[in-house]
């Protein structure tokens, strides 16, 4: 396969390039033609990605660097497959939308994400990495509220930091090894950590995660689908590729899984709740990367695949509610099941999937990561991940739908979501159930051969008990679990409040000190000037006009004096 790839390299068209070039036509089309074109473009992209044979494509020399834009292997394909699938689903979901900026941005963003997973070298990876950021921020800004503008700016700043770390790490890596090939990063020193931190920021690993829960709830309804799918999962891919078996990541992942759960308890905005559960779910993947065994890495890759589909489905459900009601807070929603029954049911399929109920997709992927922890006898990790599972069902499967679709009647009387939104949700829901019922399909293209069966009696007993008794706890504590009209501060508080306050404090104090210094120096300058004026100013001693006669008199006196001295 590699040889055919090398032979074809001269004529190979990178799927990302194809998609990016394709988007350039979008602004010139209108109405139904444009809708049809966008759908067709995403389907062509899907077809191209799903028919690529593994191999190395399009390698070239540039400025003495060996660029490999097309390294296609089983690991990159898992991610490329699901990215292209979600591009089609996201396009259908946004079919009704008339905003060319968003259409172009979303598709370039997807193209860049596929570019990252096909990049065989760090320079190509970096270019697509930055392109992802530049394209995705428009999906936040195009909400066109002051909040989304500010959140987009913060998003941009955090990801710029990630980009700078990555670039610095790549430069150091190159000077250390003389190569830019992107394989497992097995060097020591700052390059290792710079690249790792750059990746961890995009994977939203605490404490570097707050950009996600800050920005995603402010994004446009349709843009959030792409955002929820792409950025964190490309980061999971590069972590699997570059840092498998990094022990630090096991614990970071487990903490991450619980961190998201805690904040989801406090969340009131439905998409913020879901955003925190992205962090929680990516925690499983990061922990799997850290464990680094074949089953763990398979678990991470498969969980990324299923996660993208069910998380997009959940975001689409929440987005449909926001689109139809204009409300996004649990305290303002309720009783919508009568008016949006299909949205409700489709959302619940996503919720059962993320909660890892048997017969839904999360069950066949999440339990693989948890099983990987058990196989390694990592008891605390296993307990933490299991607890996070309970928390996932608690919020995404119970709290959000109960207080949005059931619960008290909020008085809102929305229509059902438009057909294209329901269709997109239906496709995602189909895959959630299909993978849950027939996991062999997904297991068939994982990076390593799968020797794991989710449907054993012990998994079923354990998972069902865990989830159903979580449900019992929820209904017993129902009075205390609803949303509250509050927000909760996270680590973004540091750069939204603490740093500006410090800067203001330093600014105020520094300003005062500077003013004092100025006053002091002004006073001494003034004294100096006054002194000068006293002696040299108009009418002062040294500036007086002296009559010639007095000068002659003084000359005579001096002469007389000198004569006297001379004779004495």
């Amino acid at each position, binding site marked *: 396969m590699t040889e055919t790839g090398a032979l074809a390299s001269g004529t190979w068209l990178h799927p990302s390039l194809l998609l990016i070039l394709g988007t350039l036509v979008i602004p010139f089309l209108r109405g139904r033609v444009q809708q049809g074109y966008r759908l067709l473009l995403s389907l062509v992209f899907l077809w191209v990605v799903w028919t690529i044979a593994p191999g190395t494509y399009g390698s070239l020399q540039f400025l003495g660097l060996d660029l490999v834009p097309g390294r296609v292997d089983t690991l990159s394909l898992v991610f490329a497959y699901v990215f292209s699938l979600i591009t089609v689903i996201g396009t259908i979901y946004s079919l009704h939308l008339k905003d060319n900026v968003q259409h172009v941005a979303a598709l370039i963003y997807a193209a860049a994400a596929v570019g990252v997973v096909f990049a065989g070298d760090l320079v190509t990876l970096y270019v697509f990495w930055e392109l992802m950021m530049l394209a995705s921020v428009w999906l936040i800004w195009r909400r066109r509220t002051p909040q989304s503008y500010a959140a987009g700016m913060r998003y941009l700043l955090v990801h710029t930091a990630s980009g700078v770390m990555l670039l610095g790490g790549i430069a150091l890596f190159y000077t250390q090894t003389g190569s830019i090939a992107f394989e497992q990063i097995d060097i020591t020193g700052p390059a290792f950590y710079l690249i790792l931190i750059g990746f961890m920021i995009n994977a939203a690993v605490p404490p570097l995660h707050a950009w996600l829960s800050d920005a995603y709830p402010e994004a446009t309804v349709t843009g959030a689908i792409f955002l929820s799918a792409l950025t964190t999962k490309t980061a999971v891919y590069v972590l699997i590729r570059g840092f498998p078996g990094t022990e630090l990541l096991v614990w970071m992942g487990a903490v991450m899984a619980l961190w998201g759960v805690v904040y989801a308890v406090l969340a009131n905005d439905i998409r913020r709740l879901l955003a925190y559960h992205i962090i929680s779910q990516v925690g499983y993947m990061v922990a799997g990367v850290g464990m680094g065994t074949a089953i763990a890495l398979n678990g991470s890759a498969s969980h990324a695949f299923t996660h993208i589909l069910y998380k997009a489905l959940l975001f689409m459900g929440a987005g449909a509610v926001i689109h139809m009601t204009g409300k996004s807070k649990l305290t303002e929603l309720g009783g919508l099941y009568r008016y949006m029954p299909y949205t409700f049911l489709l959302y619940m399929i996503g919720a059962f999937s993320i909660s890892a109920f048997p017969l839904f997709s999360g069950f066949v992927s999440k339990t693989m990561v948890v099983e990987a922890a058990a196989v390694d006898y990592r008891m605390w990790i296993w307990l933490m991940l299991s607890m996070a599972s*309970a928390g996932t069902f608690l919020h995404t499967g119970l709290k959000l739908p109960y207080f949005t679709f059931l619960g008290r009647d909020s008085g809102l009387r929305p229509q059902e979501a438009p057909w294209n939104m329901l269709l997109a949700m239906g496709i995602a829901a189909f895959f959630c159930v299909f993978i849950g019922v027939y996991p062999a399909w997904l297991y068939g293209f994982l990076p390593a051969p799968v020797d794991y069966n989710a449907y054993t009696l012990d998994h079923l007993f354990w998972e069902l*008990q865990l989830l159903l008794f979580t449900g019992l706890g929820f209904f017993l504590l129902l009075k205390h679990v609803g949303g509250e009209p509050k927000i909760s501060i996270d680590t973004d508080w540091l750069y939204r409040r603490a740093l500006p306050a410090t800067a203001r404090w330093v600014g105020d104090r520094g300003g005062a000190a500077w003013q004092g210094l100025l006053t002091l120096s002004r006073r001494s300058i003034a004294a100096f000037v006054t002194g000068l004026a006293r002696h040299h100013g108009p009418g002062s001693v040294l500036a007086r006009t002296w009559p010639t006669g007095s000068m002659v008199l003084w000359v005579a006196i001096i002469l007389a004096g000198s004569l006297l001295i001379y004779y004495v």
Partner: protein
Amino acid sequence: MSRFLEYLVKNARPLTWVMLALMALLVIADVFIPTGYGRFPFDSIGGFGALYGFVSCVLIIVVSKLLGYAFLYRSEDYYDDALPDGRPRAGAPEPPEKRDD
């Protein structure tokens, strides 16, 4: 479709009892059917999953709410991107007439 949901909501009480009965059966089955799960000292104990799920749920809610009230909760306008008099901060765009989406 909504008629089906309406039916479920109307019969919430009997359905709850059915659910609870199923959950009890599940625990009983776990106690009596050996599953061969034995990596940790506790996972072969029948019904441990149920206990852990319930305890996890309560713990998550209680600990999170405590953290919320003690440290994390703020009023909704805490981060408001507007000045105290309601004007948007310099640099922020004018609020649009309507949200596109």
